[in-house]
């Protein structure tokens, strides 16, 4: 068992810093050849030890040796440590070695840069980071980083990700939890099968020679196939507040009791105001819509991350007074308003984002990056996004749709699935009246109507300045050169969630001239132009996260001095990925009707099906390019 032996050796390495094994790892020449393929960096060695002393105290120790091959591998160094009042750095040092394993630089904790961990969209956060600012003089080089952090807030336990991301391979990685406390540590191993990972015990894992992964088009999220071990304490503390986490029910109960209870107080005068507003409404949905609209007009989104690790919402009374809050504060405030009009709603923690990320149904732990509100309803739950001042009531497509979220009720937590927008509901209809003149120029009145997920993709156009709106349409139809755009009109029907864009366009160079002939593509306003990337050997399965349906009808009037010389034949294709059809009907000598329907289904497919998928897409691209030929009568 050479594998086990090396694990034991590495365990020894951890306790003594200079060691023959260690020295070998510092030379980049000793990296196995298969790990250098498609790698910006190789993690030679990564050892994480978590020693749990009590429900509110654990020590995280990590030693990491990384060989960096180029600039893109700099972030794989892992030379960043977050800290705050309840996460104290005990030790932090780094050494840099050249490719021969000779030490060239040494950094102590004071040599690390200290900065605020505020990200772009946040006004204030009390989290901070220390990071190493090293300028490599030569590649490859090897960095050894040793970190020790004492966690007094134990709601979040660092997990193990032996493959840290794309284009980085791992030679050795180990993760171990020693529990010296009387609280239970829960653990869950995910996606370990198929990777060279050994499970020594429930609390001890190691990996050897994991090759790098490269991203591919239409891949499902990295998290869905990469190996990971997650851990959580059953008894924990978050900034001095004790909690229990056997399951989602407990964890949600804790959130309700400790983070939400007592935050929902709003002034009497406001209570009266919303009650008066909603007094004529009969159903819960009607009342909720009035309250939602009231909230949207009163507040704005400002991200300020303070208070119990950024997990406790701002008091509803403060939100009322200040007129702003982050997602937690705005959701909680809306909930308080809904309570007043007698509508039950629940605060929910979720992953917000275009990419669909779900909570783990089976493993309760601190998760999520966003908060929303859910109004339970027998037929269909209503989900409210409270951070937007313009979002239609109950609309969530594109940001919090189709995923598992944690609902916080007074009885405890519960995982439930958010609204799914079906393929047929993500509809776009494009209608156009097109005139093609004898010089090849085009003028047209176009109407684009979008619903469901496609509404979310188009609705933002109305908020742009006129100049940007014009540029948007020029970009949307970028295959038509010299496009000029006029008479832009938007109609946003928020009640039915339908967005309508009316626009007049023209271009002097639409049809291509070839002597006496004019060539043009009858699909003037809704072409698929991109073929998915080709892979010689596809390695990852693929996914279409949201389906959609496009329906197009264009009436084309051609100049009376031209005859139709050639016209493409109708096409009708249907398969598991979706369907595509178009036809051209001659309404008169100079009038044509072009109809097209395209559907892309939501679906998850094995990698073997990718070539077929790509063929389907490229067939659409080809048919959307089909041309008509007109020939001059004179």
């Amino acid at each position, binding site marked *: 068992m050479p594998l086990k032996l090396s694990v034991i050796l590495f365990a020894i390495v951890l306790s003594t810093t200079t060691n023959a094994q260690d020295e070998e790892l510092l030379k980049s020449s000793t990296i196995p050849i298969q790990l250098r393929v498609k790698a910006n960096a190789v993690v030679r060695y990564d050892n994480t030890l978590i020693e749990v002393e009590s429900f509110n105290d654990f020590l995280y120790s990590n030693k990491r040796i990384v060989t960096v091959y180029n600039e893109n591998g700099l972030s794989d160094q892992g030379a960043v440590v977050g800290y705050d009042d309840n996460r104290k750095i005990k030790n932090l040092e780094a050494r840099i070695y050249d490719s021969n394993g000779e030490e060239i630089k040494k950094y102590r904790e004071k040599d690390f840069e200290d900065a605020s961990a505020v990200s772009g969209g946040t*006004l204030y956060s009390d989290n901070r980071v220390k990071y190493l600012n090293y300028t490599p003089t030569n590649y490859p080089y090897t960095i050894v980083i040793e970190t020790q952090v004492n966690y007094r807030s134990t709601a979040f336990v660092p997990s193990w990700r032996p493959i840290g991301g794309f284009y980085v391979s791992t030679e050795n990685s180990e993760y171990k939890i020693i529990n010296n406390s009387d609280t239970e540590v829960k653990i869950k191993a995910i996606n370990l099968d198929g990777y060279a990972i050994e499970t020594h015990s429930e609390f001890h894992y190691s990996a050897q020679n994991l090759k790098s992964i490269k991203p591919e088009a239409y891949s499902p999220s990295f998290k869905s196939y990469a190996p990971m071990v997650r851990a959580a304490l059953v008894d924990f503390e978050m900034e001095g507040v004790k909690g229990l986490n056997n399951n989602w029910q407990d964890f949600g109960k804790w959130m309700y009791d400790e983070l939400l209870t007592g935050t929902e107080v709003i002034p009497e005068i406001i209570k009266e105001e919303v009650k008066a507003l909603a007094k004529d409404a009969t159903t819960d949905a009607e009342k909720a819509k009035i309250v939602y609209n009231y909230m949207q007009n009163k507040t704005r989104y400002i991200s300020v991350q303070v208070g119990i690790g950024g997990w406790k919402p701002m008091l509803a009374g403060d939100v009322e007074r200040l007129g702003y809050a982050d997602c937690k504060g705005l959701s909680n405030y809306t909930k308080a308003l809904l309570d007043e009009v007698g509508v039950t709603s629940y605060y929910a923690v979720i992953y917000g984002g275009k990419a669909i990320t779900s909570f783990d149904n089976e493993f309760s732990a601190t998760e999520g990056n966003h908060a929303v509100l859910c109004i339970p309803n027998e037929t269909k739950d209503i989900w409210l996004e409270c951070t937007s001042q313009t979002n239609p009531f109950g609309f969530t497509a594109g940001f919090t749709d189709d995923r598992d979220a944690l609902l916080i009720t007074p009885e405890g937590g519960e995982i439930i699935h958010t609204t799914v927008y079906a393929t047929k509901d993500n509809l776009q209809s494009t209608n156009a009246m097109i005139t093609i003149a004898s010089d090849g120029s085009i003028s047209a009145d176009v109407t684009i109507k979008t619903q469901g997920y496609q509404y979310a993709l188009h609705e933002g156009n109305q908020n742009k300045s006129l100049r940007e709106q014009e540029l948007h349409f020029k970009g949307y139809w970028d295959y038509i050169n010299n496009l000029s755009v006029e008479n832009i009109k938007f109609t946003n029907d928020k009640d039915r969630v339908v967005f309508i864009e009316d626009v007049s366009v023209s271009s002097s160079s639409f049809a291509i001239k*070839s002597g006496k002939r004019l*060539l043009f593509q009858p699909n003037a306003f809704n072409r698929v132009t991109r073929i998915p990337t080709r892979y010689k050997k596809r390695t990852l399965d693929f996914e279409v996260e949201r389906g959609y349906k496009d329906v197009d009808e264009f009436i084309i009037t051609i100049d009376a001095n031209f005859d139709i010389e050639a016209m493409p034949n109708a096409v009708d294709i249907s398969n598991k990925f979706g369907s595509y059809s178009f036809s051209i009907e001659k309404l008169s000598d100079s009038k044509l009707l072009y109809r097209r329907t395209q559907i892309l289904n939501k679906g998850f497919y094995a990698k073997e099906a990718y070539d077929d998928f790509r063929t389907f897409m490229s067939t659409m691209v080809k048919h959307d390019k089909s041309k008509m030929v007109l020939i001059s009568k004179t």
Partner: protein
Amino acid sequence: MKAIIIAVVLLIVCNLQAQNFKFGKVSKEELAEKVHPKDPTANAALLFKRESVRFDYRKGDGFTQVRTIHQRIKIYNKEGFSWATKKVRLYDKMNSESEKLYKLKAYTYNLVDGKVKDDKLKSDGVFDEELNKFWKVKSFTMPNIKEGCIVEFTYEISSPFLAIDDLELQYTIPINVLEVLVKTPEYFIYNKVLNPQTTYLPKIEESSSTKSESITNTSISNGSLGSRNSDTSVSQFTINENVIKVNETDIPALKDEPFVDNLGNYQAKLKLELTAIKYPNEPYENLSSSWDAVTKTIYKSDDFGEQLDRSGYYEDEIDALTANLESNAQKAFAIYNYVKVKVKWNGFYGYSTDAGVRKAYKEGVGNVGDINLMLVSMLRYAGIIANPVLISTKSHGIPLFPTRDGFNYVICFVEDEDIMSLLDATGDNATFNTLPIRDLNWQGRVIRENGSSTWIDLTPRKVSRDITGLNIKINSDLSAEGKVRSQKFDYIAKSYRDNYADLSTEAYIKVLEKDKGEVLISNLEVEGEDSLLEPIKITYEYTMDNALEEIGDKLYFSPLLFLNTQENPFKQDERKLPIDLMYPMSDKYMINIMLPEGYDVEYLPENQALDFANKTGEFKYLVNQNGRFLQVNVELNINASLILPENYTFFKQFFAQAMEKESEKIVLKKI
């Protein structure tokens, strides 16, 4: 008569009410306004902005700079909400050297049921944050922001420094009323310049005034019988002050456009630079006054000129490196490459050395000053005429008047007879006369060994060429196959090296195939990636399904096949700011087409030549048929690096016509 007087008085009073900019005197009319009367697209507007700078004398501390800001901002819609949040960066190194923000007072005003309702900014909306060792940020966000509201705030910043930050006179939203007042003590001489590149030039009034300051001296002495006496003496003195005033109304918003080098270059602003200090009874201390004087000051400083004279740390290595090299060109090339490999750039700008050349050399890391001054020094040591050139990078913009801050970077100019070349050893893919793009801004100041200095133009004159040969063999199944050979020179080669040289063959094929339809590329070879003086040579073979379209009984295709520009990058109808193209370029295609069996040419595009602004842009399209072979030459040259806004419409048209011609189809018919 009386009635008229009363009417006039009333009018004046009304007028005053609508225009009252005293803090807190926000009117209902201002709150009721729905859109900006002059710029209906504005999401917000500065109804009033007052900014003043003064110097207070404090015993022990000397002069302290105090900047007072008062802004009243109208927010028309939700897109304008970001104006309700303000972030102020404050220098914060040590206590004695830190800037402080105080006297912050801020209110939000809303119109509620026809009445003005105000909400005060409280401490829970104010945040302090340490950004890093040198800077902290004070930020605040206003309460109760709704469409149509007004926010108003005032605060002061005290600073121990004499340098005055730029006074911004224009924003991305309109300013209705602007008042700027700067009072500087006679002891400090400031140079004043307004940005001449802006489309809006405000008027500056200058005058002088006096102010009286008093110093209180308290001395404590031990009196008889153990009592303590304190004597207080107050001495008065007067200071003459120089006064600068700007009083303007209706300043239009500054709007960003694509392909602009640096929007700040076009913003109206007043720059004040300390050029001299003259205290009473002390000698006149000249800090800078002309570009020549600025250059001299920089040259004389320890972390610049002196760094050029040090040679002990590298002599042995440079001697060994150049021992067997004969020409100065070979030596220069060897030394340049040596510095690039030996010392890596840490990402920091600056014309002065940071670590110092010796330490940077030893540790292998340095800032721009460390690296390029070392390069100059080594070249000189090897007997090559080389001089430092002070420059301002694109992000630093174009300085308005001579100051040391006008420069932020240094490069090297080799003036040896055979080699006249600008060099920058911080850019991996830079080489002789091919500098990193950040350097290509404005002009540079060459400093000769005797301390004299002169300007040098940094705009690349040489046209960077991209030449592509495309062979097309058309098959009977409407596919095409053939070979592509392309050569990229100078900046175009550099752009390839910056973006693609690290990619594997397979990954670069993906780049080439992207959005090109059904093209399959194979046998890709790239030469010249590492020899920076050589062009990049790329060859590959391709097959393309459905390269031709069969419509009726005819075949259609465009001769550039999959290489034509897909999309006109210039989409705006008009422009106010110039387009920065960075360097002149030439894009040339030589296409050879072999016709398929059984087909003949039905239609060939006509030859065409286009000219834009007297050869600033040239486009040529030439077709030749020779039996079964067609030859098409397409050439697009842009012989300038900057297109001025007044030429934009023509430039856009020129570009569109060229693209249209490129997409024209050849028609083949069955024999």
